[in-house]
Protein backbone atom coordinates (compact mmCIF):
# COMPACT_ATOMS: atom_id res chain seq x y z
CA UNK A 1 0.00 0.00 0.00
CA UNK A 2 2.07 2.91 -1.24
CA UNK A 3 0.94 5.96 0.66
CA UNK A 4 2.93 8.61 -1.21
CA UNK A 5 0.47 11.44 -1.88
CA UNK A 6 0.86 13.40 -5.10
CA UNK A 7 0.03 17.11 -4.57
CA UNK A 8 -3.23 17.62 -6.47
CA UNK A 9 -4.90 14.48 -5.23
CA UNK A 10 -8.55 14.55 -4.27
CA UNK A 11 -9.49 13.26 -0.84
CA UNK A 12 -11.52 10.53 -2.51
CA UNK A 13 -8.39 9.14 -4.05
CA UNK A 14 -6.87 8.38 -0.65
CA UNK A 15 -10.19 7.58 1.05
CA UNK A 16 -9.76 3.79 1.17
CA UNK A 17 -6.21 4.10 2.48
CA UNK A 18 -7.26 6.62 5.15
CA UNK A 19 -10.16 4.38 6.15
CA UNK A 20 -7.79 1.47 6.56
CA UNK A 21 -5.30 3.53 8.58
CA UNK A 22 -8.11 4.81 10.80
CA UNK A 23 -9.26 1.24 11.32
CA UNK A 24 -5.87 -0.24 12.23
CA UNK A 25 -4.03 2.87 13.42
CA UNK A 26 -4.04 2.07 17.13
CA UNK A 27 -2.28 -1.29 16.88
CA UNK A 28 1.48 -1.74 17.59
CA UNK A 29 3.65 -2.18 14.54
CA UNK A 30 3.80 -6.01 14.02
CA UNK A 31 0.08 -6.46 14.67
CA UNK A 32 -0.71 -3.40 12.56
CA UNK A 33 0.86 -4.95 9.47
CA UNK A 34 -1.16 -8.11 10.06
CA UNK A 35 -4.37 -6.11 10.59
CA UNK A 36 -3.69 -4.11 7.44
CA UNK A 37 -3.33 -7.20 5.30
CA UNK A 38 -6.42 -8.73 6.90
CA UNK A 39 -8.41 -5.60 6.08
CA UNK A 40 -7.21 -5.79 2.48
CA UNK A 41 -8.14 -9.47 2.23
CA UNK A 42 -11.60 -8.84 3.65
CA UNK A 43 -12.07 -5.91 1.28
CA UNK A 44 -11.10 -7.99 -1.76
CA UNK A 45 -13.36 -10.88 -0.75
CA UNK A 46 -16.32 -8.58 -0.09
CA UNK A 47 -15.92 -6.63 -3.31
CA UNK A 48 -15.50 -9.69 -5.48
CA UNK A 49 -18.29 -11.60 -3.77
CA UNK A 50 -20.70 -8.78 -4.60
CA UNK A 51 -19.26 -8.56 -8.11
CA UNK A 52 -19.86 -12.33 -8.44
CA UNK A 53 -23.48 -11.99 -7.26
CA UNK A 54 -24.13 -9.00 -9.48
CA UNK A 55 -22.43 -10.76 -12.40
CA UNK A 56 -24.69 -13.83 -12.23
CA UNK A 57 -27.75 -11.57 -12.24
CA UNK A 58 -26.41 -9.26 -14.96
CA UNK A 59 -25.51 -12.24 -17.11
CA UNK A 60 -28.97 -13.77 -16.88
CA UNK A 61 -30.72 -10.44 -17.46
CA UNK A 62 -28.56 -9.46 -20.45
CA UNK A 63 -28.88 -12.94 -21.98
CA UNK A 64 -32.64 -12.60 -21.45
CA UNK A 65 -32.86 -9.17 -23.00
CA UNK A 66 -30.83 -10.34 -25.99
CA UNK A 67 -33.31 -13.19 -26.45
CA UNK A 68 -36.35 -10.87 -26.24
CA UNK A 69 -37.32 -11.94 -22.72
CA UNK A 70 -36.98 -10.05 -19.39
CA UNK A 71 -34.67 -12.37 -17.43
CA UNK A 72 -35.21 -12.89 -13.70
CA UNK A 73 -37.52 -10.19 -12.32
CA UNK A 74 -39.58 -12.03 -9.73
CA UNK A 75 -37.28 -12.18 -6.71
CA UNK A 76 -36.99 -8.77 -5.14
CA UNK A 77 -37.30 -5.48 -7.02
CA UNK A 78 -36.47 -6.13 -10.72
CA UNK A 79 -34.90 -9.44 -9.70
CA UNK A 80 -32.15 -7.86 -7.61
CA UNK A 81 -32.44 -10.49 -4.89
CA UNK A 82 -32.04 -13.34 -7.38
CA UNK A 83 -28.38 -14.00 -6.41
CA UNK A 84 -29.43 -14.18 -2.74
CA UNK A 85 -32.13 -16.70 -3.68
CA UNK A 86 -29.61 -18.72 -5.72
CA UNK A 87 -27.15 -18.65 -2.83
CA UNK A 88 -29.73 -19.88 -0.36
CA UNK A 89 -30.84 -22.57 -2.78
CA UNK A 90 -27.27 -23.75 -3.22
CA UNK A 91 -26.75 -23.78 0.57
CA UNK A 92 -29.78 -25.86 1.40
CA UNK A 93 -29.34 -28.33 -1.45
CA UNK A 94 -28.10 -31.76 -0.39
CA UNK A 95 -24.39 -32.27 -0.98
CA UNK A 96 -24.12 -35.80 -2.44
CA UNK A 97 -20.69 -37.46 -2.43
CA UNK A 98 -20.58 -40.66 -4.51
CA UNK A 99 -19.72 -43.69 -2.34
CA UNK A 100 -16.88 -44.79 -4.62
CA UNK A 101 -15.40 -41.29 -4.77
CA UNK A 102 -12.21 -40.41 -2.97
CA UNK A 103 -13.71 -38.16 -0.23
CA UNK A 104 -10.55 -36.15 0.47
CA UNK A 105 -9.90 -35.26 -3.16
CA UNK A 106 -13.60 -34.75 -3.84
CA UNK A 107 -13.70 -32.13 -1.10
CA UNK A 108 -10.31 -30.63 -1.90
CA UNK A 109 -10.93 -29.93 -5.60
CA UNK A 110 -13.29 -26.93 -5.25
CA UNK A 111 -11.23 -25.60 -2.34
CA UNK A 112 -7.99 -25.62 -4.34
CA UNK A 113 -9.76 -24.18 -7.38
CA UNK A 114 -11.27 -21.31 -5.40
CA UNK A 115 -8.07 -20.67 -3.44
CA UNK A 116 -6.01 -20.48 -6.63
CA UNK A 117 -8.44 -18.14 -8.39
CA UNK A 118 -8.72 -15.86 -5.33
CA UNK A 119 -4.94 -15.72 -5.00
CA UNK A 120 -4.72 -14.16 -8.44
CA UNK A 121 -6.50 -11.05 -7.10
CA UNK A 122 -3.55 -10.19 -4.91
CA UNK A 123 -1.44 -8.51 -7.58
CA UNK A 124 -3.97 -6.51 -9.62
CA UNK A 125 -3.54 -2.75 -8.95
CA UNK A 126 -7.10 -1.51 -8.39
CA UNK A 127 -6.12 2.12 -7.87
CA UNK A 128 -3.21 4.48 -7.39
CA UNK A 129 -2.92 3.45 -3.71
CA UNK A 130 -4.93 0.23 -3.89
CA UNK A 131 -2.33 -2.40 -4.70
CA UNK A 132 -2.86 -5.37 -2.36
CA UNK A 133 0.59 -6.88 -2.83
CA UNK A 134 3.45 -5.17 -4.66
CA UNK A 135 5.46 -8.03 -6.16
CA UNK A 136 8.47 -7.55 -8.37
CA UNK A 137 7.41 -10.54 -10.54
CA UNK A 138 3.64 -9.89 -10.24
CA UNK A 139 2.77 -11.08 -13.74
CA UNK A 140 4.56 -14.40 -13.22
CA UNK A 141 2.76 -14.80 -9.87
CA UNK A 142 -0.58 -14.19 -11.63
CA UNK A 143 0.05 -16.94 -14.16
CA UNK A 144 1.51 -19.30 -11.57
CA UNK A 145 -1.63 -19.02 -9.43
CA UNK A 146 -3.76 -19.29 -12.57
CA UNK A 147 -2.09 -22.52 -13.65
CA UNK A 148 -2.80 -24.16 -10.27
CA UNK A 149 -6.49 -24.26 -11.27
CA UNK A 150 -5.67 -26.98 -13.82
CA UNK A 151 -4.61 -29.24 -10.98
CA UNK A 152 -7.96 -28.67 -9.27
CA UNK A 153 -9.88 -29.48 -12.46
CA UNK A 154 -8.04 -32.78 -12.71
CA UNK A 155 -8.63 -33.57 -9.04
CA UNK A 156 -12.35 -32.92 -9.54
CA UNK A 157 -12.49 -35.19 -12.56
CA UNK A 158 -10.43 -37.95 -10.94
CA UNK A 159 -12.04 -37.87 -7.50
CA UNK A 160 -15.58 -38.28 -8.82
CA UNK A 161 -14.73 -41.87 -9.84
CA UNK A 162 -16.94 -41.44 -12.88
CA UNK A 163 -15.74 -42.29 -16.40
CA UNK A 164 -17.46 -39.29 -17.97
CA UNK A 165 -16.15 -36.75 -15.51
CA UNK A 166 -12.61 -38.11 -15.91
CA UNK A 167 -12.92 -37.88 -19.70
CA UNK A 168 -14.34 -34.37 -19.41
CA UNK A 169 -11.56 -33.39 -17.01
CA UNK A 170 -8.96 -34.59 -19.53
CA UNK A 171 -10.69 -32.57 -22.27
CA UNK A 172 -10.88 -29.52 -20.01
CA UNK A 173 -7.17 -29.92 -19.23
CA UNK A 174 -6.34 -30.15 -22.92
CA UNK A 175 -8.22 -26.89 -23.43
CA UNK A 176 -6.68 -25.13 -20.43
CA UNK A 177 -3.13 -26.14 -21.27
CA UNK A 178 -3.37 -25.34 -24.97
CA UNK A 179 -4.73 -21.85 -24.17
CA UNK A 180 -2.25 -21.10 -21.40
CA UNK A 181 0.47 -20.75 -24.03
CA UNK A 182 -1.10 -17.90 -26.05
CA UNK A 183 -2.16 -16.26 -22.77
CA UNK A 184 1.45 -16.05 -21.58
CA UNK A 185 2.87 -15.20 -24.98
CA UNK A 186 0.39 -12.36 -25.48
CA UNK A 187 1.74 -10.59 -22.38
CA UNK A 188 5.33 -10.58 -23.69
CA UNK A 189 4.79 -7.38 -25.76
CA UNK A 190 3.48 -5.67 -22.63
CA UNK A 191 6.53 -6.68 -20.60
CA UNK A 192 8.76 -5.64 -23.48
CA UNK A 193 7.10 -2.21 -23.64
CA UNK A 194 6.92 -1.67 -19.88
CA UNK A 195 10.32 -3.21 -19.13
CA UNK A 196 9.15 -4.76 -15.85
CA UNK A 197 7.08 -7.65 -14.60
CA UNK A 198 5.55 -5.75 -11.68
CA UNK A 199 1.94 -4.71 -12.20
CA UNK A 200 2.42 -1.20 -10.79
CA UNK A 201 5.38 -0.73 -13.13
CA UNK A 202 3.31 -1.78 -16.12
CA UNK A 203 0.53 0.65 -15.19
CA UNK A 204 3.06 3.42 -14.58
CA UNK A 205 4.53 2.79 -18.04
CA UNK A 206 1.10 3.47 -19.55
CA UNK A 207 0.66 6.90 -17.95
CA UNK A 208 0.57 10.19 -19.81
CA UNK A 209 -1.19 11.24 -23.02
CA UNK A 210 0.09 11.79 -26.57
CA UNK A 211 -1.04 15.16 -28.05
CA UNK A 212 -2.97 15.56 -24.82
CA UNK A 213 -5.75 13.31 -26.08
CA UNK A 214 -4.64 9.76 -26.88
CA UNK A 215 -3.52 7.97 -23.66
CA UNK A 216 -0.36 5.87 -23.75
CA UNK A 217 -2.34 2.67 -23.20
CA UNK A 218 -0.77 -0.32 -24.87
CA UNK A 219 -4.02 -1.23 -26.59
CA UNK A 220 -3.47 1.74 -28.92
CA UNK A 221 -0.22 0.26 -30.29
CA UNK A 222 -0.43 -2.40 -33.05
CA UNK A 223 1.37 -5.09 -31.07
CA UNK A 224 -0.64 -4.13 -27.97
CA UNK A 225 -3.95 -4.38 -29.81
CA UNK A 226 -3.09 -7.82 -31.23
CA UNK A 227 -1.85 -8.87 -27.79
CA UNK A 228 -5.08 -7.63 -26.20
CA UNK A 229 -7.19 -9.63 -28.66
CA UNK A 230 -5.16 -12.80 -28.09
CA UNK A 231 -5.21 -12.25 -24.31
CA UNK A 232 -8.98 -11.85 -24.25
CA UNK A 233 -9.65 -14.93 -26.39
CA UNK A 234 -7.26 -17.03 -24.29
CA UNK A 235 -8.77 -15.63 -21.08
CA UNK A 236 -12.17 -16.73 -22.40
CA UNK A 237 -10.79 -20.22 -22.87
CA UNK A 238 -8.90 -20.26 -19.55
CA UNK A 239 -12.04 -19.48 -17.57
CA UNK A 240 -14.16 -21.97 -19.56
CA UNK A 241 -16.40 -19.21 -20.81
CA UNK A 242 -18.84 -19.00 -23.74
CA UNK A 243 -17.48 -20.33 -26.99
CA UNK A 244 -15.05 -22.49 -25.04
CA UNK A 245 -17.37 -23.81 -22.31
CA UNK A 246 -17.09 -27.37 -23.60
CA UNK A 247 -16.03 -28.87 -20.23
CA UNK A 248 -19.32 -28.05 -18.55
CA UNK A 249 -21.56 -28.10 -21.58
CA UNK A 250 -24.80 -29.84 -20.78
CA UNK A 251 -25.10 -31.32 -24.23
CA UNK A 252 -21.67 -32.91 -23.95
CA UNK A 253 -20.67 -35.03 -20.95
CA UNK A 254 -23.54 -34.12 -18.65
CA UNK A 255 -21.76 -31.46 -16.60
CA UNK A 256 -18.21 -32.44 -17.41
CA UNK A 257 -15.98 -32.77 -14.38
CA UNK A 258 -18.70 -31.21 -12.21
CA UNK A 259 -21.14 -34.09 -12.65
CA UNK A 260 -20.68 -35.57 -9.19
CA UNK A 261 -20.84 -32.24 -7.40
CA UNK A 262 -24.01 -30.78 -5.93
CA UNK A 263 -25.02 -28.23 -3.39
CA UNK A 264 -22.49 -25.73 -2.22
CA UNK A 265 -19.47 -27.42 -3.83
CA UNK A 266 -21.14 -26.92 -7.20
CA UNK A 267 -21.66 -23.26 -6.31
CA UNK A 268 -17.99 -23.02 -5.33
CA UNK A 269 -17.00 -24.23 -8.79
CA UNK A 270 -19.11 -21.53 -10.39
CA UNK A 271 -17.82 -18.90 -8.02
CA UNK A 272 -14.29 -19.94 -9.02
CA UNK A 273 -15.22 -19.65 -12.71
CA UNK A 274 -16.55 -16.15 -12.22
CA UNK A 275 -13.51 -15.18 -10.12
CA UNK A 276 -11.32 -16.51 -12.94
CA UNK A 277 -13.23 -14.30 -15.35
CA UNK A 278 -12.86 -11.28 -13.04
CA UNK A 279 -9.14 -11.90 -12.53
CA UNK A 280 -8.56 -12.25 -16.28
CA UNK A 281 -10.40 -9.01 -17.07
CA UNK A 282 -8.66 -7.26 -14.14
CA UNK A 283 -5.27 -8.27 -15.52
CA UNK A 284 -6.34 -7.35 -19.07
CA UNK A 285 -7.21 -3.86 -17.83
CA UNK A 286 -3.86 -3.59 -16.04
CA UNK A 287 -1.81 -4.85 -18.98
CA UNK A 288 -3.51 -3.31 -22.00
CA UNK A 289 -6.03 -0.65 -20.92
CA UNK A 290 -3.75 1.40 -18.71
CA UNK A 291 -4.92 0.06 -15.31
CA UNK A 292 -6.35 2.91 -13.25
CA UNK A 293 -5.32 5.73 -15.61
CA UNK A 294 -7.98 8.19 -16.72
CA UNK A 295 -8.67 8.31 -20.47
CA UNK A 296 -8.31 12.12 -20.64
CA UNK A 297 -6.11 14.49 -18.62
CA UNK A 298 -9.09 16.62 -17.62
CA UNK A 299 -10.71 13.56 -16.01
CA UNK A 300 -7.73 13.08 -13.71
CA UNK A 301 -9.72 14.47 -10.75
CA UNK A 302 -11.98 11.42 -10.66
CA UNK A 303 -10.50 8.78 -8.26
CA UNK A 304 -8.38 6.19 -10.02
CA UNK A 305 -10.27 3.14 -8.77
CA UNK A 306 -13.37 4.48 -10.56
CA UNK A 307 -11.53 4.23 -13.90
CA UNK A 308 -10.30 0.77 -13.10
CA UNK A 309 -13.78 -0.46 -12.23
CA UNK A 310 -15.29 1.20 -15.33
CA UNK A 311 -12.89 -0.61 -17.68
CA UNK A 312 -13.22 -3.77 -15.58
CA UNK A 313 -17.04 -3.76 -15.93
CA UNK A 314 -16.77 -2.97 -19.63
CA UNK A 315 -14.64 -6.09 -20.13
CA UNK A 316 -17.03 -8.21 -18.03
CA UNK A 317 -19.95 -7.01 -20.16
CA UNK A 318 -17.86 -7.93 -23.19
CA UNK A 319 -17.52 -11.47 -21.79
CA UNK A 320 -21.30 -11.67 -21.36
CA UNK A 321 -21.91 -10.15 -24.78
CA UNK A 322 -19.75 -12.79 -26.43
CA UNK A 323 -21.51 -15.49 -24.46
CA UNK A 324 -24.84 -14.21 -25.81
CA UNK A 325 -23.58 -14.45 -29.38
CA UNK A 326 -21.12 -17.26 -29.98
CA UNK A 327 -22.06 -20.95 -30.42
CA UNK A 328 -19.90 -23.52 -28.65
CA UNK A 329 -16.74 -24.87 -30.30
CA UNK A 330 -16.04 -28.59 -30.65
CA UNK A 331 -12.94 -29.93 -28.92
CA UNK A 332 -11.05 -30.32 -32.22
CA UNK A 333 -11.99 -26.84 -33.47
CA UNK A 334 -10.99 -25.49 -30.08
CA UNK A 335 -7.53 -27.05 -30.04
CA UNK A 336 -6.97 -26.35 -33.74
CA UNK A 337 -7.74 -22.67 -33.06
CA UNK A 338 -5.24 -22.70 -30.21
CA UNK A 339 -2.31 -24.46 -31.86
CA UNK A 340 -2.73 -23.43 -35.49
CA UNK A 341 -3.89 -19.87 -34.97
CA UNK A 342 -3.37 -18.35 -31.56
CA UNK A 343 0.15 -19.61 -30.78
CA UNK A 344 1.70 -18.62 -34.15
CA UNK A 345 -0.11 -15.28 -33.99
CA UNK A 346 1.24 -14.65 -30.48
CA UNK A 347 4.78 -15.54 -31.59
CA UNK A 348 4.56 -13.17 -34.57
CA UNK A 349 3.18 -10.55 -32.22
CA UNK A 350 6.38 -10.77 -30.18
CA UNK A 351 8.22 -9.98 -33.40
CA UNK A 352 6.03 -6.95 -34.01
CA UNK A 353 6.60 -5.81 -30.44
CA UNK A 354 10.37 -6.09 -30.93
CA UNK A 355 10.12 -4.09 -34.16
CA UNK A 356 7.87 -1.53 -32.42
CA UNK A 357 10.22 -0.94 -29.53
CA UNK A 358 13.40 -0.91 -31.68
CA UNK A 359 11.97 1.74 -34.03
CA UNK A 360 10.91 3.99 -31.11
CA UNK A 361 13.33 6.84 -32.01
CA UNK A 362 11.92 7.14 -35.56
CA UNK A 363 10.38 10.59 -36.05
CA UNK A 364 8.39 12.53 -38.64
CA UNK A 365 7.39 10.62 -41.78
CA UNK A 366 9.15 7.54 -40.47
CA UNK A 367 6.40 7.29 -37.82
CA UNK A 368 3.88 6.49 -40.57
CA UNK A 369 6.20 3.85 -42.01
CA UNK A 370 6.63 2.46 -38.53
CA UNK A 371 2.87 2.27 -37.99
CA UNK A 372 2.27 0.76 -41.44
CA UNK A 373 4.89 -1.95 -41.02
CA UNK A 374 3.74 -2.78 -37.50
CA UNK A 375 0.08 -2.96 -38.54
CA UNK A 376 1.08 -5.12 -41.50
CA UNK A 377 3.01 -7.48 -39.24
CA UNK A 378 0.01 -7.69 -36.91
CA UNK A 379 -2.78 -8.02 -39.51
CA UNK A 380 -0.94 -10.06 -42.15
CA UNK A 381 -0.59 -13.36 -40.28
CA UNK A 382 -4.12 -12.87 -38.92
CA UNK A 383 -5.58 -12.90 -42.43
CA UNK A 384 -3.30 -15.65 -43.77
CA UNK A 385 -3.70 -17.97 -40.78
CA UNK A 386 -7.40 -17.16 -40.65
CA UNK A 387 -7.84 -18.30 -44.21
CA UNK A 388 -5.83 -21.42 -43.43
CA UNK A 389 -7.89 -22.10 -40.34
CA UNK A 390 -11.19 -22.61 -42.14
CA UNK A 391 -9.71 -23.94 -45.38
CA UNK A 392 -11.23 -27.12 -46.73
CA UNK A 393 -14.36 -26.58 -44.67
CA UNK A 394 -16.69 -25.55 -47.45
CA UNK A 395 -20.43 -25.14 -46.84
CA UNK A 396 -21.70 -28.35 -45.28
CA UNK A 397 -23.52 -30.73 -47.66
CA UNK A 398 -26.36 -32.84 -46.29
CA UNK A 399 -27.34 -36.30 -47.57
CA UNK A 400 -30.82 -37.09 -46.36
CA UNK A 401 -31.13 -40.83 -45.74
Amino acid at each position, binding site marked *: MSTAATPNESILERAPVLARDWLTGFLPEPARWLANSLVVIVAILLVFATVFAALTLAERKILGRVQNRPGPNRVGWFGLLQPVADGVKMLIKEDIVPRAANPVLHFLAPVVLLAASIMTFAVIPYGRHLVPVEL*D*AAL*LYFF*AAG*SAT*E*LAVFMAGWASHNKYSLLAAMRALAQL*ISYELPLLLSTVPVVLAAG*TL*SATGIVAAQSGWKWGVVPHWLVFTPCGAAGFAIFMVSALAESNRSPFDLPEAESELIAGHLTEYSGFKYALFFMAEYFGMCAASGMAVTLFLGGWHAPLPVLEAVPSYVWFSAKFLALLLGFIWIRATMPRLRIDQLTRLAWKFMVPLALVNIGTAAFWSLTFPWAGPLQLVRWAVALGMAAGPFVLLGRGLSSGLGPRTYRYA
Partner: protein
Amino acid sequence: MNTVLILIALATIGAAAAAMSRPSLLNCVLLLTLSWTGIAAFYLWAGAEFAAFAQVLIYVGAISMAVMFAVLLTRRGRRDFPPRKGSRSRAAYAVLAGAAVAGVLLAAVARSPLAASPAPGPASTVRELGGQLMGPHAAALLVVGVLLTVALIGAVVLAAGAGPEKPEATR
Protein backbone atom coordinates in the same frame (compact mmCIF):
# COMPACT_ATOMS: atom_id res chain seq x y z
CA MET B 1 13.26 -17.08 11.20
CA ASN B 2 14.13 -20.76 11.40
CA THR B 3 10.71 -21.99 12.52
CA VAL B 4 9.18 -21.12 9.15
CA LEU B 5 12.02 -22.92 7.41
CA ILE B 6 11.61 -26.00 9.59
CA LEU B 7 7.87 -26.03 8.98
CA ILE B 8 8.34 -25.84 5.22
CA ALA B 9 11.04 -28.51 5.35
CA LEU B 10 8.96 -30.93 7.38
CA ALA B 11 5.91 -30.42 5.18
CA THR B 12 7.87 -30.97 1.99
CA ILE B 13 9.78 -34.02 3.18
CA GLY B 14 6.63 -35.48 4.69
CA ALA B 15 4.76 -35.04 1.41
CA ALA B 16 7.66 -36.48 -0.60
CA ALA B 17 8.02 -39.51 1.70
CA ALA B 18 4.26 -40.13 1.63
CA ALA B 19 4.31 -39.75 -2.15
CA MET B 20 6.96 -42.40 -2.50
CA SER B 21 5.19 -44.88 -0.26
CA ARG B 22 1.55 -44.70 -1.40
CA PRO B 23 0.27 -47.75 -3.33
CA SER B 24 -2.12 -45.84 -5.61
CA LEU B 25 -0.25 -44.06 -8.34
CA LEU B 26 -2.30 -40.90 -8.69
CA ASN B 27 -2.25 -40.15 -4.99
CA CYS B 28 1.54 -40.33 -5.31
CA VAL B 29 1.55 -37.74 -8.05
CA LEU B 30 -0.76 -35.39 -6.14
CA LEU B 31 1.35 -35.64 -2.99
CA LEU B 32 4.44 -35.00 -5.07
CA THR B 33 2.79 -31.86 -6.46
CA LEU B 34 2.26 -30.84 -2.85
CA SER B 35 5.97 -31.30 -2.13
CA TRP B 36 6.84 -29.26 -5.24
CA THR B 37 4.72 -26.41 -3.87
CA GLY B 38 6.61 -26.87 -0.58
CA ILE B 39 9.87 -26.35 -2.46
CA ALA B 40 8.38 -23.24 -4.09
CA ALA B 41 7.49 -22.01 -0.58
CA PHE B 42 11.14 -22.52 0.39
CA TYR B 43 12.25 -20.39 -2.55
CA LEU B 44 9.83 -17.68 -1.40
CA TRP B 45 11.22 -17.93 2.12
CA ALA B 46 14.76 -17.56 0.69
CA GLY B 47 13.67 -14.44 -1.22
CA ALA B 48 13.99 -15.80 -4.77
CA GLU B 49 10.48 -14.85 -5.88
CA PHE B 50 11.12 -15.42 -9.56
CA ALA B 51 12.33 -18.97 -8.95
CA ALA B 52 9.35 -19.69 -6.70
CA PHE B 53 6.76 -18.56 -9.25
CA ALA B 54 8.66 -20.30 -12.06
CA GLN B 55 8.67 -23.48 -9.99
CA VAL B 56 4.93 -23.26 -9.37
CA LEU B 57 4.15 -22.37 -12.97
CA ILE B 58 6.30 -25.13 -14.49
CA TYR B 59 6.05 -27.95 -11.96
CA VAL B 60 2.60 -27.55 -10.47
CA GLY B 61 1.09 -26.21 -13.68
CA ALA B 62 2.68 -28.21 -16.46
CA ILE B 63 4.84 -31.15 -15.33
CA SER B 64 2.26 -32.51 -12.89
CA MET B 65 -0.27 -32.45 -15.73
CA ALA B 66 2.12 -34.31 -18.06
CA VAL B 67 2.81 -36.92 -15.39
CA MET B 68 -0.89 -37.39 -14.70
CA PHE B 69 -1.63 -37.81 -18.39
CA ALA B 70 1.19 -40.38 -18.58
CA VAL B 71 -0.11 -42.23 -15.53
CA LEU B 72 -3.63 -42.34 -16.96
CA LEU B 73 -2.40 -43.49 -20.37
CA THR B 74 -0.42 -46.38 -18.96
CA ARG B 75 -3.02 -47.79 -16.62
CA ARG B 76 -3.35 -51.48 -17.29
CA GLY B 77 -6.96 -51.71 -16.15
CA ARG B 78 -7.85 -52.89 -12.71
CA ARG B 79 -5.86 -56.16 -12.95
CA ASP B 80 -3.82 -55.42 -9.85
CA PHE B 81 -0.23 -56.45 -10.20
CA PRO B 82 0.73 -59.44 -8.09
CA PRO B 83 3.14 -57.95 -5.56
CA ARG B 84 6.56 -59.07 -6.73
CA LYS B 85 8.00 -61.41 -4.17
CA GLY B 86 11.14 -59.35 -3.72
CA SER B 87 9.34 -55.91 -3.46
CA ARG B 88 9.11 -55.93 0.34
CA SER B 89 12.84 -56.57 0.85
CA ARG B 90 13.75 -54.33 -2.05
CA ALA B 91 11.91 -51.41 -0.44
CA ALA B 92 13.76 -52.09 2.79
CA TYR B 93 17.13 -52.07 1.04
CA ALA B 94 16.20 -48.86 -0.78
CA VAL B 95 15.24 -47.12 2.41
CA LEU B 96 18.46 -48.36 3.99
CA ALA B 97 20.49 -46.93 1.08
CA GLY B 98 18.59 -43.64 1.31
CA ALA B 99 19.19 -43.45 5.05
CA ALA B 100 22.89 -44.16 4.58
CA VAL B 101 23.22 -41.39 1.99
CA ALA B 102 21.27 -39.03 4.24
CA GLY B 103 23.50 -39.90 7.17
CA VAL B 104 26.67 -39.15 5.22
CA LEU B 105 25.27 -35.86 3.92
CA LEU B 106 23.95 -34.71 7.27
CA ALA B 107 27.24 -35.56 8.96
CA ALA B 108 29.09 -33.51 6.36
CA VAL B 109 26.67 -30.61 6.78
CA ALA B 110 26.87 -30.71 10.58
CA ARG B 111 30.67 -30.55 10.65
CA SER B 112 31.04 -28.07 7.80
CA PRO B 113 32.41 -24.70 9.01
CA LEU B 114 29.75 -22.75 7.09
CA ALA B 115 29.54 -19.45 8.96
CA ALA B 116 26.26 -18.33 7.45
CA SER B 117 26.00 -14.57 7.35
CA PRO B 118 22.58 -13.86 8.85
CA ALA B 119 22.50 -10.61 6.91
CA PRO B 120 19.38 -10.16 4.78
CA GLY B 121 20.04 -11.94 1.52
CA PRO B 122 20.55 -10.14 -1.74
CA ALA B 123 17.22 -8.93 -3.20
CA SER B 124 16.91 -10.55 -6.59
CA THR B 125 15.01 -8.10 -8.76
CA VAL B 126 13.66 -9.32 -12.05
CA ARG B 127 15.56 -6.59 -13.87
CA GLU B 128 18.86 -7.81 -12.40
CA LEU B 129 17.91 -11.38 -13.27
CA GLY B 130 17.07 -10.31 -16.81
CA GLY B 131 20.39 -8.55 -17.06
CA GLN B 132 22.16 -11.73 -15.96
CA LEU B 133 20.21 -13.85 -18.42
CA MET B 134 20.82 -11.52 -21.31
CA GLY B 135 24.36 -10.66 -20.28
CA PRO B 136 26.83 -13.40 -19.28
CA HIS B 137 24.29 -16.23 -19.63
CA ALA B 138 22.82 -15.24 -23.01
CA ALA B 139 24.45 -18.20 -24.79
CA ALA B 140 23.17 -20.62 -22.15
CA LEU B 141 19.67 -19.17 -22.57
CA LEU B 142 19.72 -19.86 -26.31
CA VAL B 143 21.07 -23.37 -25.75
CA VAL B 144 18.32 -24.11 -23.24
CA GLY B 145 15.75 -22.76 -25.70
CA VAL B 146 17.02 -25.09 -28.42
CA LEU B 147 17.25 -27.98 -25.94
CA LEU B 148 13.64 -27.47 -24.87
CA THR B 149 12.26 -27.36 -28.41
CA VAL B 150 14.27 -30.39 -29.52
CA ALA B 151 13.36 -32.37 -26.41
CA LEU B 152 9.65 -31.58 -26.65
CA ILE B 153 9.43 -32.30 -30.36
CA GLY B 154 11.28 -35.56 -29.74
CA ALA B 155 8.91 -36.39 -26.90
CA VAL B 156 5.88 -35.77 -29.09
CA VAL B 157 7.29 -37.91 -31.91
CA LEU B 158 8.20 -40.66 -29.44
CA ALA B 159 4.91 -40.63 -27.60
CA ALA B 160 2.72 -40.30 -30.67
CA GLY B 161 4.69 -43.08 -32.35
CA ALA B 162 3.46 -44.83 -35.46
CA GLY B 163 0.44 -46.19 -33.71
CA PRO B 164 0.00 -49.70 -32.33
CA GLU B 165 1.76 -52.26 -34.56
CA LYS B 166 0.56 -55.46 -32.89
CA PRO B 167 -3.22 -55.95 -33.32
CA GLU B 168 -3.54 -57.44 -29.81
CA ALA B 169 -2.24 -54.18 -28.49
CA THR B 170 -5.52 -52.55 -29.46
CA ARG B 171 -7.51 -54.94 -27.27
